[in-house]
């Protein structure tokens, strides 16, 4: 660059309009709204990690207006205690989790492999959060119903989703919300501060189109990292090798504070619940889980759908002061069939557990139905993923 060019560039740099100064702070509400909107979207490479708080509603194509609302980063269902022992303080019987899981592995290995070309999974996710108020706070529930299709011959996969609205959780919450003036827009605690959400009634019209249809994704499955169908189908059926394979997705920094066992428990949940893996791999997953430390058994639980089952559970703290929660993998002991993954508040003394009664299910993922069929979906989405500029 010669001197003239430098002068020109210097002049131009100095001429940047003040309102375009990148050093200016972002207005707080814009910031939290944009962050909430972004993180409400499904991840491409990795599905959202399941922790006590998470962003629920994927919302392709929603404008910003609908978007803050879409940030139903929230958690669980009505606050009924899921275990049948009547103790609201979440009592987990420290029993022989290992024995239970090995028996489940036996069951799993006897199940048939996929019989149809298409693998269809229907799931229901529910989440609870609290309004960010000092006095008289109330909780809000949200969630989504999703159907994922996989063509097992080509590996193509997509899902459609319906939003389940965002409303006060129970009668007491409705009353508190009304006392607050029945606000349409509310502010909630979010991981990065506060976020604004728009309350919305669930739309029960079953004839409406889905709220979202995702484009096809080459790595639609999450096992601690995102993988393709091919990778999923070629997972090892030896528990030790499977564990090693899963741990490839473990990142000490990203797992922040989670032990490898805690991380493995969460990362492998979908292998038990709904992924189109071979019976051998599902059995290996149960066997792998049987070797993890700290797992307990809770007999006779009911999942968020009210279905009876048995849970293996693992308590963990969220970050430094997030609070004590319990992850639960619920399945049918007699068939090994996966039912749900839930995150339950154990102590209401942390940042993410405050305001919830111990025993409250803050997050839940219930597998409503899995079908292996030769009948494919009516149509496949054609939309392409938006691609970053650097790649075009």
């Amino acid at each position, binding site marked *: 660059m010669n001197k*003239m060019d430098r002068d020109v560039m210097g002049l131009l740099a100095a*001429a940047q309009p003040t309102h375009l100064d990148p050093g200016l702070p972002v207005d707080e509400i814009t910031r939290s709204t944009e962050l909430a909107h972004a993180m409400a979207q499904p991840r491409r490479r990795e599905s959202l990690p399941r922790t006590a708080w998470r962003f629920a509603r994927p919302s392709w194509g929603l404008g910003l207006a609908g978007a803050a609302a879409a940030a139903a980063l929230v958690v669980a269902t009505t606050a009924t205690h899921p275990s049948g022992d009547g103790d609201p303080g979440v009592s987990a019987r420290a029993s022989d989790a290992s024995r239970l899981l090995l028996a489940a592995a036996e069951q799993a290995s006897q199940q048939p492999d996929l019989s149809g070309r298409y693998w269809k999974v229907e799931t229901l996710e529910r989440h609870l959060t609290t309004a960010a108020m000092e006095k008289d706070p109330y909780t809000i529930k949200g969630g989504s119903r999703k159907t994922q299709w996989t063509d097992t011959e080509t590996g193509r996969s997509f899902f459609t989703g319906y939003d389940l609205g965002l409303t006060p959780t129970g009668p007491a919450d409705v009353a508190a919300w009304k006392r607050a003036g029945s606000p349409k827009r509310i502010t909630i605690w979010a991981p990065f501060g506060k976020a604004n959400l728009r309350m919305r009634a669930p739309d029960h019209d079953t004839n409406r189109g889905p709220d979202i249809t995702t484009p096809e994704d080459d790595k639609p499955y999450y096992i601690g990292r995102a993988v393709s169908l091919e990778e999923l189908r070629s997972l090892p059926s030896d528990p030790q090798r499977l564990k090693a394979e899963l741990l490839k997705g473990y990142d000490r920094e990203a797992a922040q504070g989670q032990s490898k066992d805690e991380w493995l428990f969460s990362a492998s949940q979908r292998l038990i619940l709904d992924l189109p893996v071979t019976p051998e791999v599902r059995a290996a997953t149960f066997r792998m889980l049987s070797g993890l430390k700290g797992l307990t058994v809770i007999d006779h639980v009911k999942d968020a759908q009210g279905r009876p089952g048995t849970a293996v559970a693992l308590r963990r703290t969220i970050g430094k002061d997030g609070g004590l929660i319990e992850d639960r993998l619920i399945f049918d002991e007699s068939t090994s069939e996966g039912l749900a993954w839930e995150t339950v508040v154990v102590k209401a003394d942390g940042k993410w557990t405050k305001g919830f009664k111990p025993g409250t299910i803050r997050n839940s993922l219930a597998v409503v139905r899995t079908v292996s069929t030769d009948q494919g979906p009516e149509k496949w989405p054609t939309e392409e993923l938006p691609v970053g500029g650097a790649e075009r």
Partner: protein
Amino acid sequence: MAEEAERFTALYDACRQHVWAYAVSRAGRQVADEAVSETFVIAWRRFADIPEPPLPWLLGVARNVLRDSACAQARRESLAAELQDWAEPPKPDLADEVADRNLALCALASLGEDDREALVLTAWHGLRAHEAAKVVGCSATTMRVRLHRARKRLAQALDIPRQVPPAAARVPIAVTAIGEEA
């Protein structure tokens, strides 16, 4: 996971205003907000893929979002309004320094879109030529050539290096060239 959100938030805090300023300079304030929001939606979905440094990647995404934005007409009007602001003629009673700034903005507003973009990316967002090339999706060499030409045209518009007349005497460049390729 909390830490994932924290890292994303840190990325947002570091880059959001850059992305917004870039979107404004390409499409004006009225459509910039929506584009920024959309850009960070994509950034979250592709979080694992974002290279270091992240800014060129983010600006590239913003550029695509703006290009794919459904309402081209709104974008043109929004940009025209923004450039009109830039092209306000310097007032006679302003200090020289302020007048120079106004003039530089005015000159920038008069350039074609490609020139303006190359200059904005380097002068305002501190990108090197190869990084600006990533945003635009061209080769580094092409970007260097574009930058060279853009600087030349900007200097012409500024009437440098001729002896600079008093700011007030300079005729503001009309905004008719907006949106045309230089």
